[in-house]
């Protein structure tokens, strides 16, 4: 089943779980649209997570483990936010799955 989301007037293909099929189509508005579908507000804190994921993927050609993301968020937003509970509050469907989807990273393989 191929699905799609409408972003700035263009239809972008996603898989059943909502991940972009063509990662090169990502733009910030993609995250906004996905979040709106999930009834999830995107705060600057969410964007810290999304941007970190994208920068990490650009630099290292893979998605970071959740604990690496946690550590980075702690550095950026303060130590009290550098924990898994904070990240799961931010991304209730799981920081790996939901944040990677918003950030236009590949769907996690299920290994981690």
């Amino acid at each position, binding site marked *: 089943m191929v699905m799609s989301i409408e972003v700035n007037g263009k239809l972008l293909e996603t898989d059943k*779980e909502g991940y972009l099929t063509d990662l090169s189509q990502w733009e910030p508005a993609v995250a906004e649209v996905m979040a709106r579908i999930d009834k999830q507000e995107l705060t600057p804190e969410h964007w810290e997570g999304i941007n970190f994921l994208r920068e990490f993927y650009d630099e290292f050609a893979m998605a970071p483990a959740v604990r690496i993301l946690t550590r980075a968020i702690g550095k950026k937003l303060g130590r009290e936010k550098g924990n898994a509970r904070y990240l799961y509050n931010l991304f209730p469907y799981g920081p790996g799955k939901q944040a990677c989807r918003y950030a236009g990273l590949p769907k996690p*393989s299920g290994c981690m």
Partner: protein
Amino acid sequence: MKFVIQVNEGPYQHQTTDSAYQFTRAALARGHDVLRVFFYHDGVNNGTRLTSPPQDDRDVVGRWSALAAEHGLDLVICVAAAHRRGILDESEMKRLDKDAHNLAPGFRISGLGQLIEGVVLADRLVVFGD
């Protein structure tokens, strides 16, 4: 002795998987424990029940399943490697929205953590690869 066996190659192309099977069977026959057989890389292709070898060739997949049934052997297919190569059980089929599944009896699909957890508990990891 407690063994974990890692199988890195698919059936028929390489003798690797035959050797892994024979080693596992021999270890069990001698009273050793085989905690887990972990299939990685093309090794995940050992887990498809759709192979149909001719009658005068060995049934690589079927004899793994038989060994698992006989000894309660834990045959684990790496999920990430399996997704790449199209080895699916029913729940992965549904999750990935595919139209078929092909996992052979006695096998289960799980993560690489099963390999690491296994080697931590085992006395020996024996890797069968090319």
